[in-house]
């Protein structure tokens, strides 16, 4: 198991950093085994560490308090993108942030942080007129400027600088990742990132099914794209030592809660995300970052008061039982069942199975059939349409019954992760 868990905190960062419920939020992030938290700077609404250091520093402290390291993404500057002075200025500003971080937190800590250059350079909405050639010049200047300050602390480690944070809805999104690793000096690259949401369309709009049930079923059927994309990127990165990062994901990208909340913050969203995690594991991704951690809008797995959604519970099931470094297997399940399965074997013989049911009807599965005959699971933890948005706990009798979409874990351990009801 090489997938590390992460979260974006790009939307609701003030509450995450300094809000009245911040400590509850950090505790919840720790429950999710969150290794990396992605922040956006130099973007509208994001902190500006050059103009106002303290809010940014508070945000970094919050990430550390959550038990994670930050991925600081330097989002953008305005056009023209081919102005050498503007590129130089951007690189200098980014480097100055790194310098100040080193000064405040020390090189030994900061060398493990991640630094992203730009957000959605391939999107006309975000970066109109930016070509890959522009981006390459910006990336190289910025990465060199950052590396100049990080290098003394790296001690042979690869710098964790990366891009291009490609918007996965664009037709030639993979070009950006391929060109990123083939046209830029790999000594300047520690990770390659790409973003993927299930859809951006409202039901019935832009060719999407007009029937809500069909739309939802289709969305769940397309989760396998996370695996094919992760595999495609893994092929591009093979032998380079560069991390494969799914830097933003969720079921639905529409910015209006009335459209996307039902897909992102419900039991449906829980099943979608857990299934995406299994597919990312299968595809060879190194790091995933749900968009987002906290949010008053349609994306967060909790709000600014640390009130959680079913997606939080699903991630806790996954992160608590399928851990980085575990041995994992993906048993082939019978076609048409709408089930994804991963079996993890960890320390002291711990064996856990994450089961995701992607269909909206009732179904019962024999665990030994799903896992190729393995038995001996003692505890069942489950969230589905029948558990009222919470995780239900019980003894595993060898079968798992789902009331519609859902996520379950059966495990050989009797102890339950802290905080789980």
């Amino acid at each position, binding site marked *: 198991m090489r997938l590390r868990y992460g979260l974006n905190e790009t939307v609701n960062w003030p509450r995450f950093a300094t809000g009245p419920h911040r400590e509850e939020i950090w505790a919840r992030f720790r429950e999710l085994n969150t290794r990396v938290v992605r922040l956006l700077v130099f973007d509208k609404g994001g902190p500006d560490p050059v103009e106002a250091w303290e809010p940014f520093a508070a945000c970094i402290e919050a990430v550390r308090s959550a038990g994670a390291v930050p991925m600081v993404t330097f989002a953008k500057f305005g056009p023209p993108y081919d102005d050498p002075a503007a590129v130089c200025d951007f690189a200098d500003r980014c480097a100055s942030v790194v310098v100040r971080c080193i000064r405040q937190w020390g090189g030994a800590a900061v060398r493990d942080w991640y630094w992203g250059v730009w957000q959605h350079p*391939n999107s006309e909405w975000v970066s109109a007129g930016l070509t890959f*050639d522009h981006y390459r010049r910006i990336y190289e200047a910025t990465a060199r400027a950052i590396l100049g300050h990080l290098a003394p602390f790296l001690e042979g480690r690869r710098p964790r600088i990366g891009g291009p944070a490609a918007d996965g809805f664009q037709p030639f999104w*993979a*070009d950006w990742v391929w060109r990123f690793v083939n046209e830029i000096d790999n000594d300047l690259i520690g990770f390659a990132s790409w973003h993927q949401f299930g859809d951006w369309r409202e039901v019935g709009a832009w*060719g999407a099914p007009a029937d809500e049930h*069909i739309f939802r079923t289709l969305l769940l059927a397309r989760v*396998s794209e996370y695996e094919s994309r992760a595999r495609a990127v893994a092929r591009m990165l093979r032998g380079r030592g560069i991390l494969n990062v799914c830097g933003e994901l969720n079921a639905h990208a529409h910015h209006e809660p009335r459209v996307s909340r039902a897909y992102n913050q419900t039991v449906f969203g829980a099943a979608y995300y857990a299934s995406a995690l299994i597919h990312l594991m299968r595809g060879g991704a190194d790091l995933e970052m749900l968009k987002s951690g906290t949010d008053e809008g349609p994306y967060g797995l909790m709000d600014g008061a640390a009130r959680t959604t079913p997606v939080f519970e699903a991630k806790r099931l996954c992160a608590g039982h399928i851990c980085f470094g575990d041995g994992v297997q993906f048993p082939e399940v019978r076609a048409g069942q709408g089930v994804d399965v991963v079996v993890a074997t960890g320390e002291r013989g711990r064996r856990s199975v994450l089961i995701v049911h992607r269909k909206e009807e009732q179904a019962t599965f024999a665990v030994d059939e799903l896992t190729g005959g393995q038995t001996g699971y003692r505890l069942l933890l489950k969230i589905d349409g029948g558990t009222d948005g919470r995780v239900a706990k019980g003894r595993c009798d060898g079968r798992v019954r789902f009331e519609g979409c859902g996520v379950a874990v059966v495990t050989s351990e009797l102890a339950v992760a802290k905080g789980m009801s």
Partner: protein
Amino acid sequence: MIEGETRLRLRYGLNEADSWWHFARGPHRGRIQERLRELEPDIVRIFLDDKGTPDPVAEWEAFAEYVQAVLNVGAVPMITFAKFRRPFDDPRALRWFAERCGDVVWGCLEEWGEAVRDWYWVVWNEPNSTWIGGGLSFETYRRVYEAVAECVLRWLEPVLGGRRPPIGGPSIEGFDPFWMDWVWRFINEIDPALFGLVNWHRYADWREHGEKGAPADGAAHHALLMAQAADYADRARDVARMLGGSGVLNVCGEWNAHSHYLPAVRARFNQSLFGAAFGAAVLLQLMRAGVDAEMLWTGTDVDCGYGVLDGEARPTPLYHAKKLCTRHIRPGDWVRFPTGEDSRADLDAVVARGEDGRTSALLVHLRQEKAAYAVSELDDRLAACRRLLKIDAGTVGRVVEAPCGDTVTFEGYGVAVMTNAPADSCRTGW
């Protein structure tokens, strides 16, 4: 069975579309058909109501020659009812189209008898593309599909003997970011009694060097395209997951490297040594993914920038590469991929074993640079292969035969076969 071997289920095919006249009626049709027969295609996809092909009602004789040309190359036709030019939502127009399609099936049964039960029928071409298929909504397409399939089945059912209907769609254009919607909805929203195959299309790119964000450097653009050959397997597996072991055929009904809107541009990609290596690499990926049939776009074409033969039956490098593949890696063979599940970045290979003791390997060199590969690193069984057949920059666009050595060298992009089969197992020379 040797560890890692699977049965090859891929059946080979071609499209014959815009240049159908040269294929079926032109002065060099005999030579064209002979060369295409050497590719051992099982299926040739042909078009009605598009691409300037004959009207099966007003020009039955020409249509029959088009079909007969397919039979002459040893294949069965996949007849694509490409589109109609009346309002898509007009029930009268739809009824007219569906009846017309049914009439074609009836006419074929009258002309060719019960052999027609082994033919394939496809409803519409690229309905999700405004340029090609008119940009239908799925709901409209579903109505068209169901009406046509019912009319086709009315005539076909009595000869099928209970088999799944050899009818399918949606022949989706693969650049559409939501291409999967169409396949999923086709499988899940149409009565399964009305289809037996799912058809999808894929080209690696449509952009010239430097166009719309493509690399301006030709070598970089070629390398980027070549890296996408493995995406064909990913896409095929996505479709296979949706089919879920239902027995419905997974068909890549149209593919090539490049589909630029100007023939001269796409010809540089498709009809070059790069195109040959890309095409062979795609075939290996489709084999890996368990695709049931592939249909290269296209067999014959005159100045279209796609075909493996021109109007005078002159072959392109991809013709030779495909022939190397189809003659030595045959449906039903036991195949193994020594380069792994995804291929290597520089080399892809398949080793095939026939029930007759034939062992052959197809090697594809995926890079522009020279390279040499030790045969022993690929598969021990290849030590028994005596013949090496190869096309690359050093063979001047032809297949050259030589004895096998310990290594296989490539001068840039290239395709090679090592085999223990005697030379006379091929019906004609290279």
